[in-house]
């Protein structure tokens, strides 16, 4: 179950406590996230919405260990990642996080198979075992037939499905999706959301997704809004607009 008001310890898969993120631009300090708390359980599917510059992607980067908070802590499956060194954090990402980006971010000179295989190159799996995993992941996204195609030979929707296969191939603890349908037409977007929904319902994946699209957000179990660096559930949104939530 997702909560945004916990402050103490919990048994949640992801615990965020008192998270602040401040950027310095020129001489000015910009506070992007303010004392943010969040609990996400295993198998939850959470969507983050909010206007541009509200800190959605920053929150995702912090949860994925790509950025470090100014204050506060993030604990995932018992590991507090906020104090990990760069190398340790990289290794942690390889084990626990699957990233799905808006622009797919496939390597254009590698085939779909090779793109999906990339995270497995960091493991000790044999070539044969890697092959099994890649074929399984491509099977889940329905692209086994296209495994030898290069990204340029695939449609946008297919590219995103390859990116999803890459994200799940190493069986990470949770998936982070940054506008996964932002570059797709409605039909392709629906297919991608159906796929992500399947990952949650059939495979028990935990998914945290940033989106601008309310239709896409509806597929999540819960939609949280970021407004002026503060995280609130949809029902509380009016209170935030009035300055009522601290």
């Amino acid at each position, binding site marked *: 179950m997702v909560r945004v008001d916990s402050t103490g310890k919990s048994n949640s898969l992801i615990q965020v406590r008192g998270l602040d993120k401040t950027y310095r631009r020129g001489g000015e300090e910009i506070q992007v996230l303010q004392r943010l708390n969040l609990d996400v359980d295993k198998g939850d599917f959470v969507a983050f919405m909010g206007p541009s510059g509200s800190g959605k992607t920053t929150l995702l*980067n912090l949860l*994925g260990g*790509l*950025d470090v908070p100014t204050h506060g802590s993030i604990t995932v499956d018992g590991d507090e990642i906020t104090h990990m060194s*760069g*190398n340790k954090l*990289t*290794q942690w*990402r*390889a*084990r626990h996080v699957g*990233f799905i*980006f808006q*622009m797919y*971010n496939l*390597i*254009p*000179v*590698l085939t779909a198979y*090779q793109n999906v295989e*990339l*995270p497995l*190159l*960091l493991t000790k799996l044999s*070539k044969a075992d890697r092959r099994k995993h890649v074929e399984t992941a491509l099977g889940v996204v329905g692209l086994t037939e296209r495994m030898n195609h290069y990204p340029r030979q695939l449609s946008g929707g297919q590219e995103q499905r390859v990116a999803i296969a*890459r994200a799940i191939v190493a069986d990470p603890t949770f998936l982070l999706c940054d506008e996964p349908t932002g570059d797709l037409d409605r039909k392709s977007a629906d297919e991608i959301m159906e796929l992500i929904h399947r990952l949650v319902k059939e495979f028990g994946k935990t998914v945290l997704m940033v989106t601008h699209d309310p239709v896409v957000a509806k597929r999540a179990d819960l939609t949280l809004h970021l407004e002026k660096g503060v995280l609130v559930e949809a029902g509380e949104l009016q209170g935030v607009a009035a300055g009522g939530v601290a």
Partner: protein
Amino acid sequence: MKFRGLIFANLFRKKLRLILTIGSFAVALFLFAFLAVVRGAFNRGADIAGADRLVVINRISIIQPLPLSYRDKILRIPGVKAVTHNNWFGGVYQEEKNFFPQFVIDIENQRQVISELKVRDDQWNAFVKDRQGAIVGAKTAKRFGWKIGDRIPIKNSLFGGGPTWDFNIDGIYNSERAGGDESQFWFQWDYFEERMPQSFKGNVGWYVIKLDNPDYAVSVAKAIDEMAANSSFETKTETESAFAAGWVKQFGNIQFLIMTIGTVVFFTLLLVTGNTMAISVRERVSELAVLKAIGFTDRSVLFFVLAEALTIALVGGLLGLGLASLAVPALGAALNGLLPTLILSKAILAMGLGLAVLVGGISGLLPGIGAMRMRVVNALRRV
């Protein structure tokens, strides 16, 4: 290696750029090998010169003669083991382009002093008995297809004695030192002397001295020059190595010229490949960021960039050195003995490959460090 596919896929991303960059390395390494071979040819005389030999020439110039009477005086100096003398003949075989060095030799002492140039005893004995006999180096014999028993006319305009001198090939010498000169042509002092005009009789071109011990070089050289001081034929005595080095200097500062060209070529190569690698990294910043996001370490990213740069350097380097190994023998043949033997040694090949790897490493290092330090969130924001 499981990352090989990724490295090669990135290498072949822009095929034309890859070909041009490899071509830059190939051309630079070809030029390096060529310059090193020429430099080696010029310096070989000094490099393989006997450490226990001195050369005595006329103080004014090597083209001025020295009296034969110096031989016995030199022999009496402590530390001198043997003395031989030579003259330059300066003839050509059939036409001007068929140049090779001919020396008038002292048959009694030649083999004792210049012992590394080997002639079979039976051939040497035949040569000693034949007043018009000649010993020729294996390289020159091969060049003109000469064999023992051939009669060879040599045109000469320096010394008179008729426009053509005829010689019989009695033997062929080989050098027991790698890179030794096998282009010379020797004939007897007595045959030379009898055809010289009266004014030149009793003179030699230079002396070559074998010492008991290389440590005596300074004292013996000083004694010889003092012996000839204030005479009509003052001498300049130096080690064979110094003499050979001085000979090369007559052509100008070859060493400096070659080093300068080589440095400019490699510096330019460094700029070209460094720029190419920088562009190559810059245009896939987001891909490198994704690799880091999914768990590749900073060092892995540096390794990928360096591996690409070093592969280009190695392939280009091997290509250039391979071409040089084909071209150098052809060049040597085309030069017709104008330079000593051109040798593309293993040391030159190893140094060339080492330089290629060094330039490749440096050109990949800066963009690689940039990629290593790149922050994933910043790079992904650029997409």
